[in-house]
């Protein structure tokens, strides 16, 4: 237990360093998630809108989950060398699957009756997408983004084996910071991930249309819900 007390002391004594590393950690996270969104959202939403490519859209998250983060980052070192770029590319690869799968499941699962009603009113496909499907799909899409953010915050820690990137720098450098430093930084990373989780959960709630709030959001077909419960975690 002493180690934990020392770890908390370390946080107090090194707040400047921890703050600096937290910012670097968030910069890396933001860059990786931002790029992942640019790639994954259009593809996922478009496939969901077309009701096509369910196999790809669903299995990409299974494969993505299977990719060992440590191997991905290490491999990036062998190809791209150490540093920000390598870490960021590895993190983008890891952030794309949950965003893409959720966007797909969210749009694909929008109630067909609502879509047909909109079409009956004479909306073009683009209008259906923008005015009906996206608003209804938003909470679930957002859940995917939340998962990606939390996942990337966690994985950015491991990226420290491949050059300075954030709070993981302390965790992999027990030699310099000793166990209290490692414990202190671990506590900080855990708190950071939990805060992100909480913040995004609140945001998600705020953007969920009132009518959808009471019942738990669940995509159309039960099979896909079962295959991707990660969307509701």
């Amino acid at each position: 237990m002493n180690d934990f007390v020392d770890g908390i002391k370390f946080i107090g004594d090194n707040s400047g360093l921890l703050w600096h590393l937290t910012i670097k950690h968030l910069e890396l996270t933001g860059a990786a998630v931002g790029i992942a969104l640019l790639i994954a959202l259009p593809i996922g939403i478009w496939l969901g809108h077309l009701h096509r490519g369910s196999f790809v859209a669903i299995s990409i998250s299974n494969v993505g989950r299977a990719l060992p983060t440590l191997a991905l980052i290490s491999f990036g070192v062998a190809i791209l060398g150490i540093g920000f770029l390598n870490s960021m590319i590895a993190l983008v690869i890891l952030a794309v699957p949950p965003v893409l799968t959720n966007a797909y499941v969210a749009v694909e699962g929008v109630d067909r009756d609502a879509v047909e009603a909109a079409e009956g009113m004479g909306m073009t496909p683009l209008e259906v997408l923008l005015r009906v499907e996206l608003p209804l799909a938003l909470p679930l899409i957002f859940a995917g983004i939340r998962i990606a953010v939390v996942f990337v915050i966690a994985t950015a820690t491991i990226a420290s084996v491949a050059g300075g990137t954030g709070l993981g720098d302390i965790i992999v450098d027990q030699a310099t910071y000793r166990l209290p430093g490692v414990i202190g930084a671990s506590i900080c990373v855990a708190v950071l991930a939990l805060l992100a989780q909480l913040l995004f959960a609140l945001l998600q709630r705020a953007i969920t249309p009132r009518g959808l709030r009471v019942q738990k959001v669940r995509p159309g077909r039960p099979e896909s819900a079962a295959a991707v419960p990660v969307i509701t975690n």
Partner: protein
Amino acid sequence: MLRRQSRKRDINVKQGTLRIGLAILAALALAVGLAACGSSNNKNSGTSSSAAGASTSASSTPAGQPGTGKPAVTLGDKNFTEQFILGQLYRQALEAKGYAVRLKDNIGSTEIADKALRSGQIDLYPEYIGIFNTAVAGDTKAYGTVQQAYAAGRAYAERHGFTLLPLTPFTDVDALAVKPAYAQKNNLTSVADLAKIRGLRLGAPPEFRKRETGLVGLARVYGIRDVSFSPLTIGLQYQALDSGKIDTADVFTTDGQLQGGRYTVLRDPKNVFGFQNVTPVVSSRVLTAEGPEFQATIDAVSQKLTTEAMQRMNAAVAIDKQSPAAVARSYLQANGLL
């Protein structure tokens, strides 16, 4: 998924399949239990937990060996190539004499290995005498000879319940290496020449930052202060040098990569990096319990470790990607230690 199937027959079918499922789960659990027990037994009988180890089980060695019946020892090694080889050398030599050895590979830097030794998680590990004095004993004095450094380390160790066994002939000091072109451009031959470079980009293992045989000593002795430091996992310095991410890297003089002239090693005229012959650090209690043959076995290995031998073994692992276990085995065999 959830169809309305409340007829009795369906329920019976499901019950049957559920039984099969439970049976499979139970079998799985049993298998796992056995695997878990098996692995813990392995540890008790002293075989390695190392992935790289082709293990010689202690129980298979003939009776009448000096190590037979002695308590098992846990040998640690630090986090780079030379240490993996040293770990295998000492382990295989001890096992050949009947000692039960459990190898904890790749445990981390000196600071972590030292903590593991003090807390009894390991009983011995190979350490470099200069690093022992500075990083473990906190002694920053510059010693004129390796004997003086060893005597100082030994005195500290004895006060703290460990023993430093005799040193190896080879020494593996830290050194700063640069690309030959960079050395030529900036007219570098010695570490002292680096003081004039502004914003020197230096890559090294993280612990280098706080060590006397690292940035602290470089600043104090050579006045090298304008440094942008990149903490790197050991082994990645060469790659960082090659890709131009850093100007100079902390390397080890026995590194296999230094053969072939791809890098220029800067001289250390004021001896900041000290003497780095290897001494196995052993818990004194364990040393007594294992008896005199234990130390004799270790010493017999240590005295065969010359600088050339160590460089060749490091190259075999780092460049030719032979396994540390195999390299150690052929070296011990060639020298009659197995």
